[in-house]
């Protein structure tokens, strides 16, 4: 975020006019666990810090740690749910939200997080992830089956149309569920999901891609045979970099392994860690596949009676 004087003023005023210095410190500790306002501000322990000074110090610290949006999420949370059973009314919250919207960020009710709004180009880190930090993601990897054969059999124009259509289908599903495309390599790619119930989102998104592809093959596919896709999903920690080519992750490596070695055409294969999060309704869609002794993956494939 670039420096925004209005936002700075609103947050400092909101803090100093809505809560005690002690509560400010407690709230910052939700995102910086060892936060010590006296140490940071230089005020001796035995001298109370004036509210405005404390608010200014808090603002400076969260900005320098690149945690401004996370802190606003905390303010929204305490404004709604109170703190330790006590109601807290955070003043100027609407103005703070307006300022964030001015820079293209908005609060997503579904995920309880501030993410890029619709107006701006979507970035790989949702506008909030921090360079070099490790987060828990759910990933989706997909690949068009028989790419080399298709390229040999069809004209460049036909290939371009078919693959662009597939990209459109995948992008629509990923964006609909607040995922981000991290890689697109012509005949396949990688998407990441971070917010909300991300394992359910990645699974539903993948099923929806398969169903949309089925409809596409019936009515629009430029090829004589249907386009097939292999999709795999896995979840786990991954160190984030804005340049996604720099990302090296065991989670992504495992995902690629599932996709290339164990997935089937026109199907979605998910790892046990994704499967366990699905809930009973969605889990019934999946068939276990034993890949080695006592080691399972789970697969969804659309079939017809």
């Amino acid at each position, binding site marked *: 975020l670039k420096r925004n004087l209005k936002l700075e003023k609103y947050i400092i005023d909101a803090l100093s006019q809505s809560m005690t210095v002690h509560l400010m410190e407690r709230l910052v500790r939700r995102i910086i666990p060892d936060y010590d306002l006296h140490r940071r501000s230089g005020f001796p322990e035995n001298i109370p810090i004036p509210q405005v000074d404390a608010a200014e110090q808090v603002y400076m610290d969260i900005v320098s740690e690149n945690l401004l949006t996370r802190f606003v999420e905390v303010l929204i949370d305490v404004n709604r749910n109170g703190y330790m059973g006590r109601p807290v009314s955070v003043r100027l919250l609407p103005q703070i939200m307006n300022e964030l919207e001015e820079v293209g960020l908005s609060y997503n009710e579904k995920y309880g997080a501030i993410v890029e709004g619709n107006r701006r180009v979507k970035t790989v880190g949702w506008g909030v992830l921090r360079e070099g930090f490790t987060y828990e993601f759910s990933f989706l990897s997909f690949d068009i089956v028989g790419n080399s054969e298709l390229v040999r059999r069809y004209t460049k124009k036909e290939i371009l149309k078919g693959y662009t259509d597939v990209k459109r289908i995948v992008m629509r599903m990923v964006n609909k569920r607040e995922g981000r495309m991290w890689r697109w390599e012509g005949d396949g790619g990688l998407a990441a999901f971070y917010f909300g119930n991300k394992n359910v989102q990645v699974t*539903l998104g993948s*099923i*929806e891609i398969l*169903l949309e592809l*089925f*409809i596409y093959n*019936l*009515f629009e596919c430029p090829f004589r045979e249907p386009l097939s896709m292999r999709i795999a999903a896995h979840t786990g920690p991954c160190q984030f970099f804005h340049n996604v080519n720099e990302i090296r992750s065991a989670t992504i490596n495992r995902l690629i392994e599932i996709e290339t070695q164990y997935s089937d055409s026109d199907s979605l294969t998910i790892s046990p860690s994704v499967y366990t999060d699905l*809930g009973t*309704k*969605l889990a*019934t*869609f*999946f*068939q276990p596949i034993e890949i080695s002794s006592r080691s399972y993956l789970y697969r*969804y494939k*659309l*079939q*017809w*009676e």
Partner: protein
Amino acid sequence: LDILVFSNSRKADGYFKIKRKSNDFSLPQIFPREDFNKVLKNAEPGTLVYLDLSGLEMVQVSRYIRTILKADDLYPGLLDPLGKITDVAHLFHEGVADYVDKATLREGITVQRLNQVFKYLLETGRAYTKTAEERTREEIRSRYISSGNSWSDVVPGREYTFCLMFVELDGAVEMEKMYGRDTLARALGSFRSYIESLVGSFNGRIWIWSGFGGVVLFPFNLTRSDSLKCGLCLVLFKHLYDIEESIFPNFISFRLALSIGNILYTEVGTGHVISDSLNYIYHLGQQFAEPGRFYITEEVLLISHTAFMEFFLESGEFEGRKIYRMRLPIHFRNTC
């Protein structure tokens, strides 16, 4: 025969002396040559495609002829207002169905001339004859009144042909016993929103609704309607609705039925409309349809994309019409 003319000449309008469409020929439709590929892609089988040779090299002419012949049952004809062609017979060896020289063009191409072309195609065994299915399709279309491509063409108080879709949740009685009134109302509201939003993306509108279901109308322009694709999507994506949006704790089940019929369109008092088409779709949905299934009349299948054929199975007759049932997708590991 349909007649397409590709010409960049301003005089092209005068090339034909046909002012009225007949049983045998449609009125010529004139397009600039730049639209050749685009228009040709959608040409009906049995179309006579005339190309104005002005400004074209012979190599280009041969390429155009080949393109026309590559499509099934299209016949190339050449218009030569500048008298460029010297070896006319050669064109016929290449597969041309007609060649019109400068003098004939000046007089204008007549119906008699087109009859001669058709006779020539018949004699050479190339004339396109319609299949029984195509004849049935045309017959169906001739019985109906187009409601256009969108709702903006539909005026209340007039009679139109629509595709009518019946949709109703199964197990209404059990649901009323199982859920409290408020919970049921919320769950039914969510179901209606799902139907409304999905049919809306296919140009459909809920026309009648009462609690557990109702009737949706789709405009029908006598050529195509998205109603069957919409039905397919309702069945295919139902389980995602179940997981993501439905307030009902279990997987829901609903019946769908689709037919075509005429309706005196009204926007008020739809609950009091008396109509054979409306009666038919209600009867089909409530008396014939089995829980969780999607049924359509043969007419719907005939006016729809051929890709649907493999997903529908014959399922007997109902009130004098042949009925087809959709094969259901199997999403689950054990049951459907």
